Structures are given as C-alpha cells and as structure tokens.
C-alpha cells in the first residue's frame, strides 16, 4: 500500500557505484526509479540492513541529474555508519533511501554568488553551483578541509565554470571567501558592488551578492558575523542529529530568533540572520 501522494519517496536501491575520492571521502551514486523534483540544499536519508546502526543518516544531495535520474551523495567516512556505507561489500546490497527532504537554498539571480564549504559541507555546493551556472550566474567557491590529504580536487567539488579556491582549514574558508569578495570588489567593474540585480531578487541584496554556506558550526558562525557586518545575505545549511527526517519525531529542533524550528522539515537551510549562533 505504498502511496502516490506528493512528498518524499522511499526506495530500496543497490548503489550504481561508490567511488573513493581520497582517504576519507566517497561518492555514492544511485539511479532513482523515477523523476523527482530535487533542489540544491535538500537532503536524503540512507539506511542499510547490513550496517548495525539504528537511525537513517542524512546526506545533502551532492549531484542530481534528472535525465539519468542519477543522484550522488558525498560521504565522509568518519563514523561506524558512514564508514560501512562505503564498504564495497555493504554497497552490493540495497540501501533504503528516503527523500528529497527539507527545504534547500533559495536560488535568486544576483551579480555574483559566493559558496563557502567546510569539510563534507561542500556536498550540496556542487549541486547548487551547477544550478547557478545553468542559469548563467557567476559563481565562486571557497572550500576548507582538515588537511591536505582530506582536500578534494576542485573538479570533485564544483562543476567547470566555478572560480574555486581550496584551503586546508575549514575556518579559513571564510578568509578565502573574504579574499574572493575583496578581489571582486576592487575590480574595475562598475556592475559589481552596485544595485543591478534582476527584478525578482531580494531587494535587500543591494550589492548584488548572495552567499551560501555549509560546514562546521564554528565556520558558519564566523561567516555569519562577517556577513552581518557587511550586510551580505547569507543562507546556511545546518546540521543536527535527526530521527525521522520528516518532521514527525521533532528531534532536530534548532533555536532561532523566532522560536525553534525543525531542521528536517523547516530547514536544513536557514537565513543566517534568524539563527541563534550562541545557543
């Protein structure tokens, strides 16, 4: 009695492949049985009968190709579940995949889009960059990783056409972003730094810049402080322990200035100005 109602879908699928990207990161590819409407910043949950953990684990959608129905997830093997998900013996068996879940990034036309990612927080930024580039937008990415061995090759993080800088410290990704922003601002380009955005863009985006980020809390907090100071609109993808992923268990609440929200159903992407960064 599976249901055809609108919303997340549940499938059991053997991964098409699990590619090892470096010492810690893997990319799992799965072919979904049907076309779905998936937006950058949305996530899915994965569970395997072969992995002895209870709760499904959430992963932001890394890549999504509607034509081939191939969904890709970036998995950092750092715990029991994530390490076993990437094991070739486990990946020969079906995974329960539930999604798409949550609300993703609000993509609006702007003069320039800055993406800031830390560690596995770079996962949704490939999908976001692809969507922006498809709409002929200018995109820069600043990515930070724990160390040189962790750092993913740029082509694994964003599609061709993105200006990308990678550092080996998630927090300094914010510094990279500031340098990117500064280099853009000092360019002899009158269209940057002035209000020249499309009609449907947020009227507060007076400098034509949009910032999107996903990564460790300390990185996001630092970035939020900088963006607030500069008046830059920032959307952040936040992380919490999740139970159901669909708003039923209420386990992933996050304090905001307007009350608590459930990150699974009302997030995971929030406007940085509403987040209680010190909570």
């Amino acid at each position, binding site marked *: *009695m*599976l*249901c055809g*109602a*609108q*919303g*997340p*879908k*549940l499938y059991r699928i053997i991964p098409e492949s699990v590619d090892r990207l470096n010492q810690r990161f893997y990319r799992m590819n799965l072919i979904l049985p049907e076309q779905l409407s998936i937006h950058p910043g949305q996530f899915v949950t994965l*569970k395997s009968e072969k992995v*002895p*953990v*209870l*709760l*499904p684990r959430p992963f932001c959608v890394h890549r999504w190709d509607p034509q081939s129905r191939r969904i890709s997830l970036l998995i950092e093997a750092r715990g029991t579940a994530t390490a076993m998900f990437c094991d070739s013996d486990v990946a020969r068996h079906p995974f*329960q995949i*539930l999604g798409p879940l949550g609300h993703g990034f609000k993509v609006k036309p702007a003069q320039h889009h800055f993406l800031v990612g830390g560690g596995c927080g770079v996962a949704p930024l490939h999908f976001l960059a692809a969507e922006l580039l498809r709409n002929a937008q200018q995109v820069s990415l600043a990515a930070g990783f724990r160390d040189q061995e962790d750092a993913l090759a740029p082509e694994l993080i964003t599609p061709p056409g993105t200006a990308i800088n990678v550092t080996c410290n998630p927090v300094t990704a914010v510094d990279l972003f500031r340098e990117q922003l500064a280099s853009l601002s000092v360019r002899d380009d009158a269209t940057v730094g002035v209000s020249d955005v499309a009609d449907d863009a947020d009227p507060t985006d007076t400098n034509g810049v949009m910032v999107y980020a996903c990564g460790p809390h300390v990185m996001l907090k630092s970035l939020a402080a900088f963006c607030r100071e500069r008046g830059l609109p920032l959307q952040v993808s936040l992380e919490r*322990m*999740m*139970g*159901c992923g*669909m*708003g*039923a*268990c*209420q*386990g*992933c*609440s996050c*304090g905001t200035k307007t*009350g*608590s929200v459930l990150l699974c159903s009302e997030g995971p992407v929030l406007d940085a100005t509403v987040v209680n960064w010190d*909570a």
Partner: protein
Amino acid sequence: MRRMSSSTDSQSAQNARYAQDTQDVQDSRLSCTLGSLTLKNPLIAASGTYAFGEAYRSVLDPGIWGAITLKSVTPEPRPGNPGQRIRECHGGLLNSIGLANPGLDEFEKDIIPLLGDLDTVVIASLAGSVSSDYTKLAARLNQYAVINAYELNLSCPNVREGGLAFGADPTKIEALVGQVRHATSKPLLVKLTPNVTSIADTVRAAEAGGADAIVMCNTFLGMDIDLNTGRPVFENTYAGFSGPPVFPLALRCVHQTAAATKLPVIGMGGVSTLEDVQKMILAGASAVGLGTLNFTRPDAPVELCAGLDQWVANKGAANIQDLRSN
C-alpha cells in the same frame, strides 16, 4: 475497509457508515477489538512517532494502520525541550522531546479538520501537568467524531512537572482515570510507564479508574553523558529510551500487564520485526504499537500486515485474536 468520517458528517450518517465498516472489518482475520473500538488490524502507530497522522503520507497510506495515535496534546502550546533532543545509543534511541505540541486551540483549528482523511481509527493522546488538564482536553474534544478514542499519556518521562508524577502512583492513576472517565464516553486507553516496581499495581489502578485498555509501555528512563564535558547529554538529565534494545523489557511488561487485567492490552516497546509483533500477541497483547520503527522503516506496516496474515493462515486460525495468550 474501515473509513473514518469527516468532522462535518452528521452523526447518523457516521453511525450507519460505522456499522457497515465495522462489519467489513470483522470479516478480516487481522481485525481486533479494544473495548468498543474495532480495528482492521492490530498495528497502531505510537504517539509521538507519527505527528498528527500526516507525516509519512507520501511513503505510506495511513489507512493501512489499525489505528494512529496522534502526538500528545496539552491545553497550552509547549515548545518542547531546549538543547539536544535525540541521541542514538547502544542500538536504541534516547529522546527528550518534552511534549512539544501546538496546544489545544491550534489542535482544534488546524489538526482536527485533517483527521477525517486518515482512513483509520484515530486516537488522540492527552497530556498535562495536573489532572484538570486531562479532563479539560477530554471535554473539549468529545464533540469531534473523528477522534475515536483517547489515550491518556500518564507516563511521559521528559517533562518535570507531570506525566511520570501521575504514572508511578497507583492512587493518582485511579483518581485521574476516574475523573476523565466521568468527562467522556469515548474509549479510554491508559498509557503507563515501565519505570515502576510493580506493573500490576499501576495496571489495576487504571482498570479501577475505568480504563478500557492498557497501553504498555512508554519509554524506559535512561541517560547519556558527554565525555568531553563530563555532563549529561540532555538538559533534562534523563531521557526516554526506545528501539530494539528495549523489546525484551517491554515484552516482560506486557506479559505482566496481561496477567494483571482482563482489559485489552496494547503492547509496545522496541517492536521492529514480524517476530516481535507475534511475541507481543503471544504475551497477551490485543494490538501492537510501533514507535521508533516509524523513524527507521516508515513503510514497515506493509510487510508486517502481510506477515501477520500469513501467520494466522498458517496457524489455521480464524482471527489473529485466537492466537493471543490469555
């Protein structure tokens, strides 16, 4: 198939439909009764794991359930507990949600109009800090035919001022159930805590107060400590533990409950496989609640219903209730 009526149907039309639907349901070998309630099968979504019945609609038709128990509602809105609310631990789940709910006014305005579409028996879970909270909730919700029964949550471990304070004291249980009994004619299911020395004492108290069925059991009190800070993970210190590791404990509680009362028992606690459901029924449960399983395998009732039907057939029984121990 049993179809629940919308809140706007006339009472006589609802009664006529109920009679026909009940007849259809009784023809099924999985049907079961809890007092005056007839369920199409013994699987019940546990309160707090199914929101207000709609959460999983895109992956599972809610009509497959024998009944859905809604998230507990309190007279006033509750934001729930601050800080971390869930943690996976030793193969189970610790939770400290804190009865987060929109309160009675919003429940009436926004939730009740949606319940008619669930196509199953709907059980409202009532919670509060003092006994008058429960009677107020029952009295206000009596008018809604879409709510088929009440579950009295006397056992939430995650609020300081209520819940467990009632649920561990047989005298208070009997008094509170008695007061709600006088406030409603809807079937009363009383959800009890396993965190007591004598299950039989609390079960008999609920029966003496006028319960129609016993729901055994709520979560087991547990805790976890953050080794980095040396402090409890949860701001409330203790949290409710559920999931597969508690199943043997819950099965024991259900067995003790069935031995202590002739009332129907809804067994729950860590049920995650067909075998677990079967064991609950063999221990004396008339119906079986699924909770944490909804988070991990939200379409599980499809497979479980098919498995139970096959089990009854293989046993040569006319109805699943014939397999229950007494």
